[in-house]
C-alpha cells in the first residue's frame, strides 16, 4: 500500500485518471445507446473500436506520416483520422446491426441469443484482423498487417509535453486534447439526443417502441442511427487512443470493451451523462488503485468496482433510462 504516493500526488493521479476515463466514456456511449434502445449488450462494440484504430493506422501509414510533423500537418492528420475512424467504426457497427442483429430481432430471439451472437461476431473480428487480413494484405500494407497478432506501432503525431503545472500537478498537451475532445464529442451527442428531431425519435423508441411506431417514428431507422452514433463515438475514441498510446493490436478491444461496459453500468446503462460520469469515475478509481497496490492489479480493481457497484446500486450512479435521462 502506497498511501503517501497517492496522497502526495493526488492531483497528478486525478488528471491521469480523467484522461484515461475520457476514452472509456466515449466507448461506453456505444454500449449505452444500444442498450438504452434495444436492451441489448452489443458485445461486439469493442471490435468496432478496434476497427477504428486499425483504420487510423492504415490512413497514417499510407499518408506516410512521420513522427512529430509540424503543427498544421498534425491537425490535418488528426482531422482526417477522425473522419476515417468515424466512417470505419460507424460502418462496422451498422454492418453488425444489419447482418447479425436484425435477423434475430425479426425472430424475437431471447437476449441470450443476441449476446452469444455478439460474442461470436467479436471473435470473428478479432481473428479477421489478427490472422486473415495479415495473410491477405500483409504484402500491400506491411506497416499495418506485417506481423499477425502482434502489437503494431503508429507514428507519433503530437509530442507529449507539459503545458502547465498547478502545484505539483503537470498537465500535458495530449491529456488536455483527449479530455477536451472527448467531453466535446459527448456534449454534441447529448445535444443531438435531447434537442433534435432525430434525438426525439431515439428517446421515443427507448421509452416505448410500440407507441413510438404508432406516432410515426421509423424504428428501423432509429436503430440504425443509434448503432452508427455509437460507432462514430468509438471511432473518435480510436483516434484519441491512437494519438495518446500510439499502438494497436487485434485484441485490444477485449479488456477495453469490458471496462467501457463497466463504465456504462457504473453511470447507469442507457444514460448518456451516466456514461461520461462512469467513465471518468472508473478511470480515476483505476489510477488510484494502481497507485495504492501495483499497476498489474489494475484490471482486478475495475472488475471488483463493477461487482460492488452492482451489488449496492444495480441501476448505476445516475439511474438507467435513455428516454428519461435528466441527471
Amino acid at each position, binding site marked *: 500500500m502506497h498511501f503517501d504516493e497517492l496522497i502526495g500526488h493526488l492531483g497528478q493521479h486525478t488528471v491521469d485518471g480523467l484522461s484515461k476515463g475520457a476514452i472509456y466514456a466515449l466507448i461506453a456511449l456505444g454500449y449505452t445507446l444500444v442498450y438504452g434502445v434495444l436492451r441489448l449488450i452489443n458485445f461486439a462494440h469493442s471490435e468496432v473500436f478496434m476497427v477504428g484504430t486499425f483504420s487510423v493506422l492504415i490512413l497514417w501509414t499510407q499518408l506516410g506520416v512521420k513522427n512529430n510533423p509540424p503543427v498544421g500537418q498534425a491537425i490535418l492528420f488528426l482531422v482526417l483520422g477522425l473522419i476515417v475512424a468515424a466512417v470505419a467504426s460507424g460502418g462496422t457497427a451498422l454492418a453488425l446491426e444489419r447482418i447479425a442483429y436484425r435477423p434475430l430481432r425479426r425472430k424475437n430471439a431471447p437476449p441470450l441469443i443476441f449476446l452469444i451472437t455478439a460474442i*461470436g461476431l467479436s471473435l470473428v473480428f478479432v481473428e479477421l484482423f489478427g490472422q*486473415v487480413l495479415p495473410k491477405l494484405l500483409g504484402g500491400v500494407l506491411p506497416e499495418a498487417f506485417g506481423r499477425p497478432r502482434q502489437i503494431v506501432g503508429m507514428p507519433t503525431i503530437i509530442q507529449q509535453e507539459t503545458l502547465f503545472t498547478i502545484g505539483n500537478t503537470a498537465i500535458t498537451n495530449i491529456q488536455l486534447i483527449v479530455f477536451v475532445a472527448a467531453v466535446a464529442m459527448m456534449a454534441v451527442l447529448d445535444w443531438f439526443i435531447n434537442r433534435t428531431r432525430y434525438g426525439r425519435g431515439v428517446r421515443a423508441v427507448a421509452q416505448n417502441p410500440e407507441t413510438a411506431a404508432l406516432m410515426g417514428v421509423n424504428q428501423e431507422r432509429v436503430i440504425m442511427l443509434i448503432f452508427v452514433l455509437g460507432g462514430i463515438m468509438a471511432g473518435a475514441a480510436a483516434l484519441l487512443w491512437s494519438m495518446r498510446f500510439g499502438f494497436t493490436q487485434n485484441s485490444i478491444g477485449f479488456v477495453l470493451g*469490458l471496462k467501457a461496459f463497466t463504465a456504462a453500468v457504473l453511470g447507469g446503462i442507457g444514460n448518456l451523462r451516466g456514461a461520461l460520469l462512469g467513465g471518468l469515475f472508473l478511470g480515476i478509481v483505476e489510477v488510484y488503485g494502481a497507485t495504492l497496490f*501495483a499497476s498489474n492489479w489494475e484490471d482486478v480493481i475495475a472488475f471488483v468496482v463493477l461487482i460492488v457497484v452492482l451489488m449496492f446500486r444495480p441501476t448505476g450512479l445516475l439511474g438507467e433510462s435513455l428516454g428519461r435521462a435528466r441527471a
Partner: protein
Amino acid sequence: MIDKIRTADRRRVGMLTSVGDRWRALTKWQQALGLAAFVAILYYLPLLGIPGLTWLRTDSIEGGNNWAGVLFVCAIYVLVAIGLNVVVGLAGLLDLGYIGFFAIGAYSVALFGSVNSPVVKWIQQEFNLPPTWAVTWAICLFIAIVLTMISGVLLGWPTLRLRGDYLAIVTLGFGEIIRIVARNATGLTNGPVGISAIPGPEGAPSPDNKVFGLIDAKPWYWLAITFVLIMVFLVRRLEHSRVGRAWLAVREDEDAAAVMGVYPFKFKLWAFAIGAALGGLSGFLFGSRNAFIDPTQFNANLSILFVAMVVVGGSGNMIGVSLGAVLLAYLPERFRDFADYRWLVFGLAMVLVMILRPQGLVPSRRRARELKDRAAEAEEAPAHV
C-alpha cells in the same frame, strides 16, 4: 435461399427428435443393452485405429499419434459442457467466466498436491513435515470440489440477483480476476512461473508410475470417462428431480416461478454451485494429467469456447452439449494445419448457429418449443422490437 436452408433444417431437427422418440419407445432391457454397448464402445475407443479418424498430428508427441490424449481432452471438455449446461441450459444463466472454476479446480490440486507449491511448503514448515509431504490426490479431489463450490456460491451470492445480461459481464470479469490473481499473487501460486509436479492417482509424476504416466494417455482417458459417466448419471437424476423442474421454471419465467413458490435465487445459486463443482472437477483432471499449470492456460477465450460448446451443441440437452464439446475439442486437433483459424471458425459457427438454428445442433425439445413460441409471437406483432 435462406428459407430453403431453414426448411431443410427443420426436417433435420424433426429427424433428430424422432430418433429420441424411437429410443424412448424401446423396452427397458433393450435400452439397458444399448447403453451397455455404448459404454463398452466408449471404453474401447482409445484402442481404435481407424486411419483418418484416429491418426492425429499433435504437438505433444514427436511426429506422432496421440489419439488417446485427444480423447482425454474431449472427455474433460464434456465434463465442462455438462457442468455449464446446468448453469446455461437448465437454469438459463449465462456464465462467461466458467474458466475461473476450471482454473480453481486445477490450482487446488496444484497448490495442495505438489511439493513445489508455496502452500504445501508453508504447511510443511508450520507442522514440521518432511519435504516430500503433500496432500494426497484423493483428498485434493475433495478439496477441489469444495473450493469450487464455495467460489461458485461466493460469486453467485452478490451477482445472481442481477439481470441476465449483467450477470454475463460480471462472470466474464470473474474469470479474468481469477487469472490475474493466479498471475500476480506469486506468494500463493508461483505466478507466471507456474507449478510443476502435480500429482496423479499414483502420486507425484515419476518414471516409476506404472499406470498414470506422462506419456500414455489411455489410463487418463479411462479415468476421465468414468468421471463423465458418473456425472452424467447424477446430473440426469438431478435434472428430472424437483430441483431440475425448478430450474426450468426459473429459466422460462422467473416471476411466474416465484409466484408458484419456487424461490428463484436459491435454485440459481444451486445451479451455480453444482456447475462450478463440475468445472472444478474437470480442471482438477486437467491439472493432474498435465502435471504442470501456469496462468496462461486459463485465458478468457477458453470461457467463450466453453459457452460455444454448450450453445452450438444445443443448450439444455446433455447429449447435444456433449456432442458440442467433443466436436470443438476434436476438430481443432484433427485439422491442426488450420489451427490458426480455429477461433475464426468458432466465431463464425456461433453466429451461424444462432441465426439459423438458435436451439443448437441437437436441440432440447423444450427449448426448441420455447423459441418457436417466441418466433410466432414476433410474427403476430411485427412492430415489436
